């Protein structure tokens, strides 16, 4: 693997490590041929500007950018060299919020959330709070990364955690290209272990969903047919089963933006997103029912806005002052990256959002 692929943009001191620079490129473009319509203009056409939140359903908590992988397209710019992780104190504040929120879903993400030293304590405490759907975004390889993680499947089972994991393709070549050499085999092994204790089996309550995002500068295909193909291939080749596949569009930020620019696909990709713009997807973009909390306790409309440093447009900006009513009164902050959520069938952390 090349050196570039083993380090985050931060470590490489890339100008794209700065959210400000990413936003400049997204807003002003690097095109020669004039700009794209702004996302705000686009949603004005269907009277959906400004975007407004509906009832809060999902609390997404990013417990840190540390990760055992350095995937080519990571929108978090996560990796082993990232040190930002949520402290126990901030977790305690999150627990207060979890106890008092109307949200039914808790979505723990990272980085590899399991690498936060307080991860298990937090899951333990949070799972007592009566949340209906407790999601952990596990990259699968973490389960095989080190002995101390080998018992994670059992731990997940004991806490009835809903495991959601990324899988770029059912072939080794495409998966390893995006996520690093050896990732595919380790992921399959982890999936088999999860299956062995009941995860992902038909009729099992132990939910195991996979996330598919394209390995290059193209949009995801139809979610239902991709799910069929994934299920058949993983079953035939490895006896692996899972529940649903969420197809997610890569948003043009962070390492994926870096890849788009370096491979001279940026312009074409932005056009693809704009051409595939679907006003019906706007109604259900995930920022309309989600609050995203960063490792340092700041509040965002979504994980993508978090990475771009776009805090919520509300008096309440930090978990210290969390107030659901005030937050429900905000306008959602949007920019050109939002085209990624509204292309085709739309895209959210739970996959497609429109028919």
């Amino acid at each position: 693997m090349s050196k570039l692929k083993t380090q985050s943009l931060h470590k490489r001191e890339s100008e794209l490590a700065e959210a400000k620079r990413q936003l400049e490129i997204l807003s002003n473009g690097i095109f020669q041929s004039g700009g794209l319509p702004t996302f705000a203009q686009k949603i004005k056409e269907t009277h959906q500007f400004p975007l407004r939140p509906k009832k809060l359903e999902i609390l997404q908590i990013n417990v840190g950018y540390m990760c055992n992988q350095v995937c080519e397209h990571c929108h978090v710019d996560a990796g082993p060299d990232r040190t930002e992780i949520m402290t126990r104190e901030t977790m305690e504040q999150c627990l207060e919020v979890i106890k008092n929120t109307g949200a039914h879903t808790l979505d723990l993400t990272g980085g590899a959330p399991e690498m936060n030293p307080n991860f298990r304590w937090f899951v333990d405490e949070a799972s007592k709070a009566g949340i209906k759907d407790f999601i952990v975004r596990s990259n699968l390889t973490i389960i095989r990364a080190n002995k101390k993680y080998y018992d994670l499947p059992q731990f997940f089972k004991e806490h009835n955690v809903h495991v959601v994991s990324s899988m770029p393709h059912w072939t080794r070549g495409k998966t390893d290209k995006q996520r690093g050499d050896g990732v595919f085999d380790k992921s399959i092994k982890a999936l088999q272990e999860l299956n062995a204790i009941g995860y992902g089996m038909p009729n099992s309550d132990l939910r195991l969903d996979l996330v598919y995002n394209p390995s290059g500068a193209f949009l995801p295909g139809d979610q239902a047919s991709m799910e069929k193909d994934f299920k058949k291939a993983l079953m035939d080749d490895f006896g692996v089963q899972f529940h649903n596949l969420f197809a997610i569009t890569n948003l043009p930020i962070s390492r994926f933006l870096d890849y788009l620019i370096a491979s001279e696909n940026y312009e074409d990709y932005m056009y693809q997103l704009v051409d595939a713009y679907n006003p019906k997807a706007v109604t259900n973009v995930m920022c309309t029912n989600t609050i995203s909390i960063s490792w340092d306790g700041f509040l965002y409309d979504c994980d993508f806005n978090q990475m771009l440093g776009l805090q919520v447009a509300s008096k309440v900006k930090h978990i210290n002052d969390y107030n659901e009513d005030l937050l429900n009164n905000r306008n959602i902050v949007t920019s050109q990256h939002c085209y990624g959520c509204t292309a085709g069938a739309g895209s959210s952390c739970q996959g497609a959002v429109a028919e």
Partner: protein
Amino acid sequence: MAGNNYYDPADLRKFGNITEWGEELGAKFFDYYTKVFEEGALTAREKSLIALAVAHTEMCPYCIDAYTKDGLQRGITKEEMMEAVHVGAAIKSGASLVHGVMMMNKVNKLDG
């Protein structure tokens, strides 16, 4: 503005504009086209691979561009795509070669 090339990749995005100068036929074509590629007795995936093979035999850069991207979106692997291209190439070269029989007939008739 496009450069001094017969083919400009950016023109592919303008394909839909052909209806502007002939709406009825243009619209009929696009309706037909959309219908053809729907799931039917053949899957949309199979149709995409056929389109890719034909794009190569027709040597249409726009279609090659479009159906390569379409294949990737459907999760079709590069090995599958290359096999489809070979199928197209085999039929195309077979079609040339089978005309050799015509040549042989003619030679036999004229110079037998």
